[in-house]
């Protein structure tokens, strides 16, 4: 049983915790209000500086934290207090939030620096930094919050930032549509999350992690309510982390500037779903049925997105589908209760995917905004640093040792293997495709001859230092990042897993088997071997097709058969459009025309019409002729007498 201490409020610690998110918020306010007035240098100083300080503070916090101890909560103020519902504005500092803090501020800072170079020519420079800072703020709230509602604040906040940044160039309608789509699809997930929170409150009488997890163990395993809670929360995760069926926004989100894709749509925000499941691991452990659902959806997403990735021509789209696929992996791992492996993959993925995106950004920057790989080729000479760093990223994501991705993916697949061999098979298949499309990307972009216009060729240049240094940093991290979690065959000491262990203590007690390592070394080696072999085979196939044969993907609209279906992303967007968007739009028009103006309004007006009609009817009696008046009176008299005497 993990005991989270709620120590007597330490004001210094509370201030420190508050400062970490507050600094980016201040940065946001300064840059936001000063938008267009402040000089760019000041803007980038404020933007990067605030995140850097947060990063440094996080490091301080990290080192001052006693590893192995349970976390602590610092309450800033009481936010909402209604009846028994109490939602403090409080931060929880423990292993999970600390690493996430480092990740968010660290990678965030790197990307901020990169942006200073990447966006230097954009008129919305200040706005961009403001939004980035706001994003960091929201993300920090998400990971630091000590209760589900705090997490929800950050959850929606990052959604907003995602919206703002995807639609950053808001003159372009498709970008705006993409932004809107992202926000709305996220909201669908958010609804699930929200309902999950309500159910948590109803079940446990609180929304604070400490109380909820404390009481969770008292509820029988796989009880309906736990299953419902976890499923609802998972709906939220599906939206935020782009799982089937709510994934279509993420590829579209590539409309945003590339650093945004790197930061939000690869490294940090999209992993919020995984963070949430990890945070609630005890609840999920109590709900094996949900875990099964999580695993299946994760696996399906991993495979499905990878197939789409195979034939995309937009460099960022490939990476986007790759991200979706990798997120699927992480959920797969969560589904088999390989919590720390999943988190391991979150970290390594953050490094190499951010690297890949930034690299892609560097390419796009060099190509003056061109994103279609069919117009690229042979860029490795012009962009040596970008090429090398991206190659490292590719190796990492494909699972080639000793790069980071190898360790995390291997560990993850090993757990899946233990859980279910078929799932593992599909996992390996996805891994194969990953390797293929990544190398395809590399080969199409950096090898062969240049296929762009003359003008672009002239303009080709390596990016400035503010962009390449982040690339290098991330490349280093992608290279060595894996060593924080060496597999048991190499080392009994899994640094990350050991560090995180207290988080999963409660889960371990509920389901000890899932945490034990029963695999013998032979199997382990075999699995590693298969992974590496598959990745290499895929790379070689890609090499043969795109370098040796120099084939270039066909032009738009000439695809046929399955290729065409896959290229068009299985027409999922069109499907959603037909079965959801269009019906709602018609419903809107229909309700307005037929129910509002055709039914309810006429009913109300009908009261008036009947009255007026009755009035006009009365006019017939009021004919002006004395005779008829008298007649009616007499009829009235007779009626009264008859009714009173004869019909009595």
């Amino acid at each position, binding site marked *: 049983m993990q005991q989270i201490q709620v120590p007597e409020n330490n004001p210094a610690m509370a201030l420190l915790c508050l400062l970490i998110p507050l600094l980016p918020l201040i940065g946001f306010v300064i840059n936001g209000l000063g938008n267009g007035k402040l000089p760019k240098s000041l803007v980038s100083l404020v933007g990067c500086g605030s995140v850097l300080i947060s990063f440094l503070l996080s490091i301080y916090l990290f080192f001052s934290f006693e590893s192995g101890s349970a976390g602590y909560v610092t309450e800033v103020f009481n936010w909402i207090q209604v009846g028994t519902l109490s939602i403090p504005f409080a931060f929880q500092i423990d292993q999970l939030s600390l690493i996430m803090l480092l990740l968010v501020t660290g990678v965030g800072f790197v990307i901020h620096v990169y942006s200073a170079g990447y966006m230097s020519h954009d008129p919305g420079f200040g706005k961009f930094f403001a939004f980035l800072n706001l994003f960091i703020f929201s993300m920090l709230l998400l990971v630091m919050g000590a209760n589900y509602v705090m997490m929800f604040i950050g959850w929606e906040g990052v959604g907003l930032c995602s919206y703002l940044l995807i639609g950053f160039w808001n003159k372009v309608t498709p970008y705006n549509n993409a932004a809107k789509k992202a926000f709305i699809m996220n909201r669908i997930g958010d609804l699930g999350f929200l309902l999950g929170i309500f159910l948590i409150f109803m079940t446990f009488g609180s929304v604070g992690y400490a109380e909820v997890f404390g009481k969770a163990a008292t509820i029988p395993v796989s009880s309906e309510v736990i299953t419902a809670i976890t499923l609802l929360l998972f709906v939220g995760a599906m939206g935020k982390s782009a799982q089937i069926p709510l994934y279509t926004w993420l590829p579209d989100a590539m409309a945003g500037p590339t650093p945004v894709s790197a930061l939000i749509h690869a490294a940090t925000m999209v992993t919020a779903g995984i963070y949430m499941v990890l945070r609630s691991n005890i609840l999920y452990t109590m709900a094996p049925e949900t875990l099964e659902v999580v695993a299946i959806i994760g696996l399906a997403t991993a495979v499905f997105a990878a197939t789409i990735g195979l034939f995309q021509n937009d460099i960022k789209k490939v990476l986007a589908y790759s991200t979706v696929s990798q997120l699927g992996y992480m959920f797969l791992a969560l589904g088999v209760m390989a919590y720390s492996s999943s988190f391991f993959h979150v970290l390594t993925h953050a490094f190499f995917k951010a690297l890949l995106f930034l690299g892609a950004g560097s390419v796009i920057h060099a190509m003056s905004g061109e994103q279609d790989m069919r117009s690229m080729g042979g860029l490795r000479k012009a962009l040596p640093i970008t090429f090398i760093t991206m190659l490292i990223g590719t190796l990492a994501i494909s699972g080639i040792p000793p790069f980071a991705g190898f360790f995390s993916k291997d560990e993850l697949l090993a757990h899946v293997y233990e859980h279910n061999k078929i799932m593992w098979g599909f996992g390996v298949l996805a891994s194969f495709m990953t390797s293929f499309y990544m190398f395809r990307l590399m080969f199409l972009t950096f090898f062969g001859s240049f296929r762009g216009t003359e003008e672009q060729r002239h303009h080709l240049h390596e990016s400035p230092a503010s962009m390449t240094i982040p690339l290098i940093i991330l490349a280093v991290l992608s290279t060595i990042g894996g060593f924080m979690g060496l597999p048991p065959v190499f080392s009994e000491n899994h640094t990350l897993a050991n560090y995180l262990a207290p988080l999963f203590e409660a889960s371990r007690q509920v389901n000890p088997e899932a945490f034990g390592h029963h695999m013998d070394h032979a199997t382990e080696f075999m699995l590693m071997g298969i992974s590496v072999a598959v990745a290499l085979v895929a790379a070689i196939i890609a090499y043969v097709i795109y370098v040796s044969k120099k084939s270039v993907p066909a032009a738009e609209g000439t695809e046929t058969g399955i290729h065409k279906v896959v290229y068009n992303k299985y027409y999922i967007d069109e499907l959603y459009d037909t079965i959801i968007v269009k019906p709602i739009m018609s419903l809107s028009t229909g309700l307005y025309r037929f129910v509002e103006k055709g039914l309810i309004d006429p009913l109300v007006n009908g009261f*008036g019409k009947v*009255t*007026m009609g*009755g*009035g*006009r009817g*009365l*006019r017939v*009696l*009021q004919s*002006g002729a*004395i005779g008829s*008046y*008298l007649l*009616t*009176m007499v*009829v*009235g*008299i007779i009626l*009264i*007498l008859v*009714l*009173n*005497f004869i019909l009595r």
Partner: protein
Amino acid sequence: MTSIILLSVFGIINLFLGFLKSNRILMPAVVVFLAIVFGVNFIDWNQGPQTHFNNMLVIDNFSVAFAAVMVLSMLLILPFSRSYVTDENPHLAEFYSLLLFSLVGAIMMVSYENMLMLFLGIEILSIAMYVLAGSHKKQLRSNEAALKYLLMGSFATGILLFGIALIYGASGTFNISDIASFSSTQPAGLLPMMEVGVLMILIGVCFKIGAAPFHFWTPDVYEGTPTIFTAYMSTVVKTAGIAAFYKLVWSVFPGLNEFWYPTLVAITVLTLVIGNVGAAVQNSFKRMLAYSSIAHAGYLLIALTSFNDRSENAILFYALAYTVATVAAFGVLKLVSDQRGEEGYEAFNGLGKTNPLLAFSMTVAMCSLASIPLTGGFFAKFFIFGAAIDAGAVWLVVVAILMSAVSIYYYFRVVIAMYMRDAEGERIAVDPFAAFMLIVLSIFTILMGVAPGLFNNLL
């Protein structure tokens, strides 16, 4: 009692004043007369019931209060008759005298103790009104109104008399307390003759107050009659009729309530519906007011049907509020139609801009008639509904409020015309006396709406 005598005397004096060369003295004289009567009337206040004329009239608080309301009505109407006060008008003195005499009839109607007095009161009031309805001799509309009123009125009198005769036949008396005790000492049920008589009296009185289905004369006569007398009809005549009716219900036939309740309720509902719905389709403001007076008769009938001790106060309050608002409405109508030559809603277009005072007092009057809070009409209806709900007739009140919603439609049409349409006509000249009176009426209406406690428990 004094007031009846004084009114008769003043009526005669007024006729003599008509011999003077100038008509200008007449209106002030009548105002003074009425003021005196109004004051003298209160001598009998709280003196307990006093009988006169061989027990044929009884003066009590009830009759004093209603007499006061009626005298007040006439006093309020008078200033708007200024356009008649010209030296060319040869009959002015007669008109004023007729009004004074008719007031005698009205007071008799509220203080009768004998059926004969009821009959005489009705006739004194009615015959004077027949003449006044036709006072525009050259105008066919006025002629038609007079003839319709006359023929139908005397027809209704015939019915009423037949009823009285039958009751006399059954009970052997015209005295209302004797009739009351007679009807309460008939445990085995009443003679059919008595019952027919009661219904016929009911019908006769319903005609006088313009309740459906005996209301047909009302719109036509109101429309054709010169506006000033229409105002008189719809206030004094209606008040007198309803008070007389109340006396019938409360003191003449209290034992018969169960018997005639269904009839009365049916008439009430019919009156409410016809009055309100009929008013909604009118294009003439004056004719709308005629229908609205039918509608208000319906509301007053609700109070009658509730047969409890709240109703007399409710009726008195209602009569007062209704009178004040109606006089204001007719007053403004008179001023507007005199100068714009129209009586339709269009005549009021843009009045809010050209004559804010007229528009404001009209609005207050309309709000009061539509029973919007802050005006007397609101509490009037409130007390009426209260009486009915206390008696358990919630569904009747529901009918009434549905019809009230309709009434807002037609009352506010004129408000819309005044404030929300563009002006067509010139500014209307208003003499100071009328203007003063409009202000008084508005203040009075609002006073009743803000401090209803002053008026609601007089009896």
